[in-house]
């Protein structure tokens, strides 16, 4: 048995870890060692990737590329390959993943199971939108190849399906043609949520990537930094390779508190404000700023942290976001990382996908137990009332009632669950 934590480090529980090393061996292992759950690189924040006292099928041994077509940009890869590996291998040939989350240290399988999104949702949708085919292994040994046209119901259930429909062995991904690693970006400070929405609305047709950092402690005087970027046409310049820093230990007390937060947020706002304007940035710095500090999750101390990410429809988005920020500011809670972004109108491919038209707010909260959970209760009621939902990849404590209410395709999903797969999250939300 091995102690395993998810990225939020809220607790660490014993698991029976089984390394999957090839599709053939996976078939034998999961047929014998179940019920279990596929585990990639452990970057999910909450309990979606945990199965305490049970089996965890570690997919990192499924790390081969299977086929590549340089004409069409279609890549078939095993599920344990990291997005970083895809980006590094194909960028020099003019191809990139069309959609990636804020870290490239997640596996392809994990990105599918959580149907992750990036800063370009309004232009390119979610990760699942670029999956052509999937190969799914059920714990009864059945292998299902599915796509939008073949076994499409399995395809829809598996994208964003929390790994509960089977083990994703392989996927065919459509990469996107790019001219290089550089982006032309623009940084614009803003005051007030109205400003944010108007910047978002006016940027989405012309800018591929948009995202905002906000000062979550500023309350009703919300201020923030809006960032937008487009892929740059052939720019030749040297990128100085910097070695990622690493947090080597977990401080006994979290340095994230109301004083440091307030200081950081104010300082960050003014520094970024000073840097406003246009610039050329490398894709790694723009897409994955946190990957530069390995194990940054230790900064929240031994109690770990929550990330609370919601999506609210546009009609209620402004008021609900304002309400949420008010609650957070009142509680003097929050973090360095507070991200606000609008999702585009395209519906997601998966039955349980998170991304849907509206505005999404993501915040980290140091775990202060009852106090933090009480705040979340208040935020939950704002989200629910506004017709929104929480992101399963980040969640660790939403009630089953809220889940049922906010994920309308749940009934359609249920028949596709693999009875040999269970997780902390599935037990919390589905009861099994």
């Amino acid at each position, binding site marked *: *048995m*091995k*102690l395993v934590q998810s990225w939020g480090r809220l607790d660490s529980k*014993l698991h*029976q*870890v*089984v*390394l999957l*090393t*090839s599709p*053939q061996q996976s078939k034998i292992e999961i047929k014998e060692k179940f019920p279990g759950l596929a585990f990639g690189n452990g970057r999910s924040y909450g309990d979606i990737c945990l199965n305490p006292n049970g089996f965890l099928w*570690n997919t990192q*041994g499924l*790390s*081969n*590329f*299977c*086929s*590549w077509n*340089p004409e069409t940009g279609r*890549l078939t890869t095993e599920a344990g390959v990291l997005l970083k590996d895809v980006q*590094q*291998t194909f960028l020099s040939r003019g191809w990139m993943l069309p959609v990636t989350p804020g870290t490239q240290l997640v596996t392809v399988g994990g990105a599918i199971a959580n149907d992750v999104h990036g800063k370009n949702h309004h232009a390119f949708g979610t990760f699942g939108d670029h999956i052509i085919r999937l190969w799914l292994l059920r714990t009864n040994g059945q292998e299902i190849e599915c796509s939008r046209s073949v076994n499409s119901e399995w395809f829809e259930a598996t994208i964003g399906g929390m790994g509960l429909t089977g083990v994703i062995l392989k996927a065919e991904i459509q990469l996107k043609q790019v001219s290089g690693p550089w982006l032309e970006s623009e940084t614009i400070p803003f005051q007030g949520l109205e400003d944010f929405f108007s910047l978002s609305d006016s940027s989405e047709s012309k800018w591929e990537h948009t995202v905002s950092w906000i000062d979550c402690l500023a309350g009703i005087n919300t201020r923030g930094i809006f960032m937008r970027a487009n892929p740059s046409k052939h720019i030749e310049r040297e990128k100085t390779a910097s070695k990622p820093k690493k947090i080597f230990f977990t401080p006994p007390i979290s340095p994230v508190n109301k004083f440091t937060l307030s200081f950081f947020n104010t300082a960050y706002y003014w520094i970024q404000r000073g840097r406003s304007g246009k610039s050329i940035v490398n894709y790694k710095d723009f897409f994955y700023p946190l990957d530069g500090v390995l194990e940054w999750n230790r900064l929240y101390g031994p109690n770990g942290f929550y990330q609370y990410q919601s999506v609210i429809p546009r009609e209620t988005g402004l008021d609900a976001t304002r309400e949420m920020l008010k609650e957070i500011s009142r509680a003097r809670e929050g973090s360095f990382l507070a991200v606000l972004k609008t999702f585009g109108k395209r519906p997601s491919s998966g039955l349980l996908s998170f991304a849907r038209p509206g505005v999404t707010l993501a915040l980290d909260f140091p775990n202060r137990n009852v106090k933090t959970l009480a705040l979340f209760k208040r935020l939950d009621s704002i989200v629910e009332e506004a017709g929104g939902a929480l992101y399963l990849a980040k969640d660790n404590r939403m009630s089953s009632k809220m889940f049922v209410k906010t994920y309308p395709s749940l009934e359609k999903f249920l028949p596709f669950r693999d009875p040999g797969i269970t997780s902390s999250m599935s037990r919390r939300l589905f009861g099994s």
Partner: protein
Amino acid sequence: MLDTQPLFRRIIIVGATSAIANQCAKIWLTAQSAELILIGRDELKLKQITSDLKIRSPQSSISSIFVNFLDEKSIQETTQLICEERLPDIVLIAQGALPNQEECQHNLNVCRAALEINGISPILFTEGFAKFMAKADFGRIIVIGSVAGDRGRQSNYVYGAAKAMVHRYIEGLQHRIAGHCHNLSILLVKPGPTATPMTRHLQAAGASLASAETVALEIVEASNKHKTQLYTPKKWGIIMFLIRHLPSFIFNKIRI
């Protein structure tokens, strides 16, 4: 037999399906295209790895050879064929299997197989290549040993004995070429427990192991610097120093 492209470095990997070897191959091919010859026993896995590496490095020439790892005749023929065609720049010898110690104690067939695949096979391959490379005073040979070879321990002494044999063999080979070989370097790698399929049971038991990627990075770096011995991750150098120097009356009381 092989599509030789003389401008490329020629890299031979024996036991190419090993996770550490596979990571080394990825690192070498990321740095520059190469002519890679993968030698292995598991045909299906070798095929998967070959096609993966071909996608990663389409400019490289990558081929695979199946060899009986315990048949000295096949090993001799293979090493001779490769070296006579063109001397390798790098040879990585990485095959191995971690046996169950208790099974080795009860079943001498298992015991012999463990000694052969972890001890005799790597030595035969190394000797096969060294014959040509020492004569030409050219290239780098990297052999993966183990920290288990540093001192016999109740938990894995059959495996450890095979690895100790490799250690002594490499020591001798290094001694043999010292003085007259200046361009051939021989590196013995001693990885601590690494997260690979071989240590699946240790991982399941909760051991916190180094990643194959980390180990491979250190191997490539050490080989580039023409080092002769590497403990990886580096802390294992200190740990094994202490274990080697523990007096028997204390050592024999510790169950490791």
